């Protein structure tokens, strides 16, 4: 037995990417709450782009779409255990 740290088989650190740019999605639809749910946390708050990897351009559009979906009661403003 050695005191050397054993190599940890971690998965390679994959680089974050913007899913909109990768899949060429140009329009973020506020009428699709299931899709928007990917950008929210359990409480219904919008996740920052440092976590989702969304580009600035699309983060703005996501935020707008989420706010519109909230207005028309497709998404809640506050929630508990949304997912």
């Amino acid at each position, binding site marked *: 037995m050695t005191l050397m740290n054993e190599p940890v088989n971690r998965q390679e650190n994959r680089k974050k990417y913007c899913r909109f740019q990768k899949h060429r999605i140009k329009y973020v*639809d506020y*009428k699709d709450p299931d899709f928007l749910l990917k950008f929210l946390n359990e409480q219904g708050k919008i996740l920052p782009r440092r976590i989702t990897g969304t580009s600035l351009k699309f983060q703005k559009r996501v935020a707008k779409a989420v706010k519109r979906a909230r*207005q028309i009661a497709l998404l809640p403003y506050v929630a508990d255990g949304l997912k």
Partner: protein
Amino acid sequence: MKVKNYEAVFIISPVLSEEQIKEAVDKFSSLLKDSGADVYHSEDWGLRKLAYPIEKKSTGFYQLFEFKASPEVIAKFELELKRDERVLRFLTVSLDKYGVEYNERRRNGLGKKSETKTEEVA
């Protein structure tokens, strides 16, 4: 004035009968048509659960209109929606070229499929 593409979603009170809902929807679509708008698509989402209660109601009938109109029509349309007690909430959005394209695909039932497919890959 330049004609733009719009879409409007509104929630009708669930306490009404089906006939009354139909009447309300007809009222708004005829209002748009009379003021010179071209309503090229309307969609009935049926009774849906609201994400939070509005006017102490937890469900509502959703109706979607897609239309081409000049901006002056919107003010008139929204005023009428505000005045109507049967309408719980409404949202009118002007569409850019990507929005129009997306709605076209959505109507054909392709938009959603391709999007979910791509998401699975992600």
